[in-house]
């Protein structure tokens, strides 16, 4: 009994890993082969980049605020309140900005993609694309994945600015910091690697979210329930992968 079910789970895991790898290679190979659907790419970029702005802005704003508050209460006992600016700056640009933005986008965009493509799959719209001599990978998947890779870094850059601003607001109006000093501290601590590493992470996360959203939708079967579980899988799997890959990317960038 136990052996049978362990075997089944292992086989299922191996099969979906293989399927996902195949799906990724197919998508990537279609990225470089014409025809290209620029209009769909633009639509997806607006969907991911523009319409995700409010959620990303709100999460990073409040994260910046709470980091300022917490680091102050920790650091003031060592009388090193001056470091608050750099703590906010580092946490937001290196870690929380990319991770939170990606998690929000996974919930918003990844789920949407899985549900949309999943519905198209179960209502045979994907087969219809093929019969109308349009490659579904090129028409549906490639624009979404590229939009994720391009737009998440932009979202994160905006999120970085808003997050640091959140920290600034709390430091000035609640913790009575000197505004000019705080800004100077932030600026002096800021290194370009902080921003670049965060944006690179964002690109990887954008790839993960859109790829898993599309993959789960594309392979969903069995009507409403299938689409439902595809959506759940897309969000859960991409959230976990974001957090895991974030650790390894950090190690790649900053561990010596």
């Amino acid at each position, binding site marked *: 009994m136990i052996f049978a079910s362990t075997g089944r789970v292992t086989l299922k895991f191996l099969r979906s890993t293989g399927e996902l790898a195949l799906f990724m290679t197919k998508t990537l190979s279609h990225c470089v082969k014409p*025809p290209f659907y620029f209009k769909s790419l633009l639509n997806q970029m607006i969907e991911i980049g523009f319409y995700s702005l409010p959620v990303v802005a709100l999460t990073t704003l409040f994260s910046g605020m709470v980091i300022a508050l917490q680091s102050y209460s920790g650091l003031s006992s060592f009388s090193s309140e001056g470091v608050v600016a750099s703590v906010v700056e580092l946490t937001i640009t290196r870690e929380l900005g990319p991770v939170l933005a990606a998690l929000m986008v996974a919930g918003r965009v990844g789920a949407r993609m899985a549900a949309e493509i999943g519905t*198209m799959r179960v*209502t*045979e*719209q994907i*087969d*219809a694309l*093929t*019969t*109308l*001599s*349009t*490659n579904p990978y090129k*028409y549906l998947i490639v624009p979404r994945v590229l939009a994720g890779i391009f737009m998440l870094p932009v979202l994160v850059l905006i999120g970085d600015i808003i997050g640091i601003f959140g920290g600034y607001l709390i430091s000035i109006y609640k913790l009575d910091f000197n505004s000019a000093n705080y800004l100077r501290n932030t600026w002096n601590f800021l290194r370009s690697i902080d921003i670049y590493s965060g944006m690179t992470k964002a690109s990887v996360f954008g790839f993960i979210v859109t790829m898993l959203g599309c993959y789960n939708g594309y392979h969903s079967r069995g009507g409403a329930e299938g689409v439902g579980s595809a959506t759940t899988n897309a969000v859960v799997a991409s959230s976990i992968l974001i957090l895991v890959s974030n650790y390894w990317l950090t190690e790649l960038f900053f561990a010596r």
Partner: protein
Amino acid sequence: MTEFKVEMTNVKKAFGPKKVLDRVDLSVKKGESLVIIGGSGTGKSVTIKCIQGLLVPDSGSIKVDGTEIVGMSERQLEQINQKTSMLFQGAALFDSLNIWENVAFGLVEGKKMKKSEAKEIAIEKLRQVGLTPDVANLYPDEVSGGMKKRIGLARAIATNPELIFFDEPTTGLDPIMSDVINNLIRDCVTNLGATAITITHDMSSVRKIADRVAMLYKGKIIWQGSVAEINSTDNPYIQQFVNGRAEGPIQMEIKS
């Protein structure tokens, strides 16, 4: 050139342990209307999906216009699919596009036609299936099921295909609308000179559109003949199916 549009020899397809197609031999002449009949789950849909290249058979050969399509690359299949189209059971209209964009899809995306030109053809095709131009700007969720089928038909004939597949074209329609659709399908074959492969279990539809009938049972073609012969044959399977009797050699499998 061969006189056959489609030739299937010894085609086998299994999903796990379940054999869906078990050595299917079937050929369709150019300009002929073939109807495949058979109960639910006998492999009718799988048969036409194999011809379209949406599913790859486990073994056997499928030739379209004398060209072997089993083992063909995706790109070559796209070339073949340029000449074919399909009316799906649930119409499978793209719900993100309005009706004329749906009808014109194969022209705009598949044949790279200009939008204004394609729109004129789309409206002409809509008129051919008995729809007025004022539906052109509606969306698929704003029209009835019968209209969706007609729009699906307009989309299928918009590219002037040489080979058209009809998947249960009359299922779920009222008798009058069924007859309208049947007439339209017959017109496609008679006036456009297309080859048609229809799968259905609606006998009035069979009598109206078929030149030749093939019956699929347990993954095999157990009978084929002209439409006149279905009434005179002494084949017990055909007799049972045509007359819709519960008693006879065909046993409905409750559990598949």
